């Protein structure tokens, strides 16, 4: 069945009430029955929940084959915990048929690819999938299709019981002996623990894995001991160098700067650019650089930003410290400046992924967002964005908060160079739709700006500000004139991943890529 973004979704997937994507806000006003976990009572006072090993914690929680384990990705590409837990479960306890439900996975988790090939891991639910894991899943080696969700779609699915977590593993930079966790104060600091919060509340069992045990009570706690079954202390939960990079620097690349300047120009031309506006931007070159130019416009108009959300890094913390932003509310940190600021700089707060972006709660932060600036691997003439699959059709990305912020914000700006190497970024049809075009408003490239025709109000803003813009078709043609028009990818029938829209409908599927042979 064809969905609202023109993607053919196999009927075999449309079971148990699953629907195809119908357009944004389709689920608005509907009721949701939340799922509740089945949790163990610890009435008898415990001095400590410390256990000696991951294996012991698994046994304590009754781990068995067929279960779903959840993880969060605040340790990013420095994470050791996913591999550590899966190794203990599979190699020490001999478990199989396991499903990993992670907020995201990266190339740090290459070893899991082996467990997929061995059939030990049979399900993957995540936002990001990259490296070897992306390759084996794309090659059709995972037993069930991977489910790709946005950061807001994940807590929605957990709360709705669409994914039931048997054991949640919380990688905690600090914990006390009963499981009060914080993302700061240890040797593997990551800042907030926003992605883990829903897991802790909805999982049947919760195991905290830390490399820095601190005195009770570790407060204020991001994950609370009342939800925790066991605490395991390990040598190291991650590689600090890969958890938070050194201070994110604003790009000096003239192309990035030019695009960033145009992003700021577009934002400043709209009526929402006023005292107290709200903003989120990514950490990519031009997205991050937009901060710099936006600040100039803020100074010029003598206005301040009310609040900023998102993955946070240094330049936004800088604005907060300069008093140019009222509050920063943070679900994840990308660099040490942000890690060292959260809970320490006044008005720098932590929030959960649900509070950030869940479309099915009663109003996440993204719903009050004025502007978001996002990147794209590809964007097509329907303004549909792909941030998941590469030009070869292989899984190598993550929707993250992209679809959530795009859907919630008043103005969603995509910023991307028109071509990357020999690939046209602006194209006829993206390989995979990860953010639907009805949520994307403006495209800024190095070769020009295009506004979604669904937003005549923004077209008028740009015209009145004298900002030149063209149609997205013209940009696509320019891109193809520079690098040529690629042949279509060739797929087999097997669906290897389901791209779930944030509301739980099916936005797209990724199929097994047909091996390329030279004739």
């Amino acid at each position: 069945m064809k969905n609202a973004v023109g993607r053919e979704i196999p009927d075999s997937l449309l079971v148990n009430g699953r629907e195809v994507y119908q357009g944004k806000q389709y689920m608005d006003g509907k009721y949701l029955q939340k799922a509740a976990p089945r949790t163990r009572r610890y009435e008898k006072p415990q001095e400590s929940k410390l256990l000696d090993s991951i294996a012991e914690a698994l046994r304590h929680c009754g781990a068995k084959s067929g279960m779903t384990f959840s993880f969060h990705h605040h340790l990013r590409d420095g994470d050791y915990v996913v591999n550590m837990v899966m190794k203990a479960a599979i190699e020490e306890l001999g478990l199989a048929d396991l499903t990993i439900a992670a907020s995201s996975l990266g190339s740090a988790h290459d070893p899991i690819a082996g467990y997929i090939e061995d059939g030990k891991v049979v399900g993957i639910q995540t936002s990001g999938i990259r490296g070897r894991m992306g390759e084996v899943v794309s090659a059709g080696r995972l037993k069930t299709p991977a489910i790709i969700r946005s950061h807001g779609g994940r807590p929605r699915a957990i709360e709705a019981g669409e994914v039931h977590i048997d054991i949640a593993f919380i990688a905690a930079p600090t914990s006390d002996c009963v499981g009060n966790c914080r993302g700061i104060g240890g040797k593997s600091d990551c800042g907030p623990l926003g992605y883990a919060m829903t897991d802790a509340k909805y999982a049947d069992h919760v195991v905290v894995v830390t490399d820095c045990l601190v005195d009770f009570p570790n407060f204020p706690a991001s994950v609370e001991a009342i939800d925790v079954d066991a605490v395991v202390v390990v040598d190291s939960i991650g590689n600090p160098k890969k958890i938070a990079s050194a201070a994110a620097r604003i790009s000096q690349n003239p192309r990035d700067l030019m695009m960033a300047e145009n992003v700021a120009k577009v934002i400043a031309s709209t009526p929402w650019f006023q005292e107290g506006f709200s903003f989120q931007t990514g950490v990519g070159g031009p997205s991050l650089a937009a901060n710099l130019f936006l600040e100039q416009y803020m100074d010029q108009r003598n206005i301040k930003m009310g609040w900023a959300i998102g993955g946070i890094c240094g330049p936004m913390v800088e604005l907060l410290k300069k008093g140019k932003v009222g509050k920063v509310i943070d679900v994840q940190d990308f660099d040490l400046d942000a890690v060292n600021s959260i809970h320490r700089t006044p008005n720098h707060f932590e929030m959960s992924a649900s509070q950030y972006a869940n479309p099915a709660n009663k109003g996440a932060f993204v719903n009050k967002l004025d502007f978001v600036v996002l990147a794209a691997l590809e964007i097509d003439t329907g303004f549909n964005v792909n941030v998941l699959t590469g030009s070869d059709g292989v899984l190598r990305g993550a929707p993250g908060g992209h679809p959530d912020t795009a859907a919630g914000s008043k103005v969603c700006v995509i910023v991307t160079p028109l071509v990357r190497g020999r690939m046209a970024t602006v194209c006829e049809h993206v390989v995979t739709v990860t953010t639907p075009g009805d949520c994307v408003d403006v495209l800024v490239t190095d070769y020009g700006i295009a506004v979604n025709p669904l937003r005549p109000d923004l077209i008028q803003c740009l015209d009145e500000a004298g900002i030149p813009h063209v149609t997205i078709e013209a940009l696509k043609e320019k891109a193809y004139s520079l690098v040529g028009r690629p042949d279509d990818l060739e797929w087999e029938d097997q669906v290897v991943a389901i791209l779930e829209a944030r509301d739980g409908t099916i936005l797209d599927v990724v199929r097994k890529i047909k091996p390329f042979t030279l004739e």
Partner: protein
Amino acid sequence: MIPRPKPERFRLRRTMMFMNAQKPGLIKDAYIYGCDSIMLDLEDAVAENQKDAARFSLYHALKTIDYGDTEVIVRINGLDTPHWREDIRVCVAGGVDGIRIAKCESAQDVHTVEKAVEEAEREFGAEVGRTLLMAALESPKGVLNAYEICSASERMFGVAISGGDFRKCMQTTPQHNGIDMLFARGQMLLAARASGIQCFDTVFTDLDDEEGFRAEVFQNKAMGFDGKSLINPKQIRFVHEVFAPTEKEVIQAEKIVRAIKENAEKGLGVFTVDGKMIDIAFLPGAERTLRLARACGMYEGDLV
């Protein structure tokens, strides 16, 4: 093959951005930054044993890339090198808009280049006279001969000074107040205006010294330069801002052009606008202001 329209001798040239002709990543789409002219360099940016490779890269860029309204100029190697003749052949074969003569010291230098350009135009079937020239003054001798250089050819559209070499000759270094080049800039401006051609200031190379750059651009504008050479796209916006006319100037220019046209139909040569005496001599200046205003997005009328 991208045929370029016949170059316009006197057009808007606020910003000329230098880039190494050998770097495809740079030259493939330098026009996106919005400078008025790009200056593809075959001279100092290209190593001695890479001159040939750079010419190939340049030729194919000129033949495959649509630079649109952005003027394309090439800085060729000096007349004291074995490269300049071949550089000229490549430029003309590729169809550049103009050639910058490095280290120009005399009218004879201009004539020498002009002769080679004309030969190349005949060789490659280009319209004779199509290729424009500009001179770069890099030595005290060049500055002293500025007037004969500026007036040496109908192909000459402008003159520029090259600060790096010139300051070395003069045993000085860049100064914030511009005193190091004050006389040379003044002499060159006089020569350019006396010959009716444009005049461009040298590059500002310290990208971290934003304040120094701004001061120099303000001084350039105050001295009467037409534009400035740049080394980085991030310098473009500020120069365009400084060189933009004021709103008052635009309104005044519009009135003058309109008045001259209306009065010409009535047969009147001299008249007043807002109490000031105006005649045909004011037309080029007023039209220049309007063209500048249009380029800066300040004027949308049809008088120019």
